[in-house]
């Protein structure tokens, strides 16, 4: 079963995403901050991580950069969740190494299709 890491400080969003992903057949690890996200990513080696950009402590972009820097997690697929649509935020996400980004407010269905698209592209 494909393991997906979901990191968001907002519990409702975290539950929403986790629920939808589990419904779609993924095994979900849900965490509420950047440090835990980093730990879980290192120990559980998920195939894909959904990271909220603005989290207290380590931001999603920080976590993304650190995962890319470690050989064990460098290949992990990463999707950023952002409330900001400004170009510099999106660019910041991509330069940190994200594979895709989704802007809030997003539809859970859309998020799942993005994840599936990313996974099938990675497998191909």
């Amino acid at each position: 079963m494909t393991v997906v890491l979901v990191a968001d400080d907002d519990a409702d969003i975290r539950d929403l995403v986790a629920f939808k992903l589990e419904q779609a057949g993924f095994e979900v690890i849900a965490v509420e901050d950047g440090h835990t996200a980093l730990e879980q990513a290192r120990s559980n080696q998920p195939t894909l991580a959904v990271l909220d950009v603005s989290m207290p402590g380590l931001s999603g972009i920080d976590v993304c950069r650190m995962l890319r820097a470690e050989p064990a997690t460098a290949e992990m697929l990463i999707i950023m969740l952002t409330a900001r649509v400004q170009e510099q935020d999106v660019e910041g996400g991509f330069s940190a190494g994200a594979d895709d980004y989704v802007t809030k407010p997003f539809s859970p269905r859309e998020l799942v299709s993005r994840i599936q698209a990313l996974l099938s592209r990675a497998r191909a």
Partner: protein
Amino acid sequence: MRDDGSVSRLLSRAFGVLVALIVGAGLIELAVVLVQHNTVHQLTEKVQPLELANDHVADVVAGAQWAIRVYSVTGDRRTLELYDLARKGYAATVDDLRALGVGSDKAEVVRQIALMDTWWAVAEQQRAATPRSPEALRYVERAQTIFDEFSTANEGFQIALAERSDKLHRQSVVLWWATLGVASTITLGAAAIAVHTGVRTRRRILEPLRDVVEVLEGRQAGDRAARAPVHGPAELRAVAEALNAAADQSDLVRRHEQQVASRLQALDHAKTDFMSTVSHELRTPLTSISGYVELLRDPEAGELTDAQQRMLEVISRNARRLRDLIEDILTLSRIETGEFRSEVGVVDLGEVIERAIGVIAPAATKASVGLHCDVRGPLPTRGDGAQLDRMLNNLLSNAVKFTPAEGTVTIRAELHDGKVALTVSDTGMGIPADEQQALFARFFRATNAIHQAVPGTGLGLAIVRTIIDNHAGTIDVESTENVGTTVTIRLPAETEVSAVPTR
């Protein structure tokens, strides 16, 4: 340049000197005239009459001497008549002489009269003596001696008087020339002083004035530090001081204005930042609302009643409305702060229209609204492509949104009078006439649109207006309720045709 004195003191000093010189010249002339008058008086009233009287007396006595001598020698009685005539006339002439012989002349006159008296006494005795008698001849001898003495004295006096007359005359001539010299010197001196004072005064007034004018011109040209040097006469120092005070005051006001402006700017920035932050913060809860609504409406979450479906529809619609509002607020604040911008360059408005039609076409088809397009390109204008895209999208989505099924939206664009002119006309519900002036106000929504529950944020046209202002363009709206609305936009055309990108 000295700092003392004032213009009035300067001028009065100069005029004082001139008046003093003129009065001095006048006084000298007056004195000379008096002296001249005195000289002439001496000459005509004293010396010359005295000369005349002296001469006259000499003539009379000489005539008498000749007559009595001839009588004594010849005994001719006719000469005796001449003698008597002279004797009679003598009294008047000697009175004249005595009257004129005053002062220093008196002694000489008295001596002469004494001599004449002596002579007349001898002459009388000679007259009484028988002519040609030895007695008579003796008297002739004596009279001749006295007459000679008189004659010598008389001539000496006559010479002295003539010399005095000459001297007075010479004195008068010398005085006349001296007066002429002094008067012309004073006049020339006065003229020179007047010229000198004029030039000096002019310079002392003009130099500070020129400085003041220079400072005024400098300040007009934007030199805020320009201050007038305080020098010259008191009045001009006062002008320079007043000018400097006004400059200080104006600088102070300017600094104050700048402070207020920067405070306002900071405030405006804070407001925009706040709006931006709020819209960002609203996105997360909005995601939860619309996300969970989506989960609920998913058949996998379980069957819902029709009523529940309708309720979820309301929540969903309002979540979408909230999302649109947040987006529009954010867009507006980003356009205002200049954050919302792509590269500024030459943009063909025809391409922008084409893109916008591509975006709106599905919605128009869905609403059965016909889209007509008449673009006579190329339409080069200078601007921000992303902002112009946004402007066109807002205009077209408004037109389609407010037009009922089977209506049409017409887009026309052409170059006209150095402007790119764009009109978007619809056959929609229009805007009530009394609401049209509020059209561009934020959150304004026409009452007919609200009644007919047409969705909208009330920010679309405010965004359009801000973008047009950014591009130095104009926007005009003509609308008749239930007939339609025509929006006309004019943007400055880019004149460099070569800069138009080839399509």
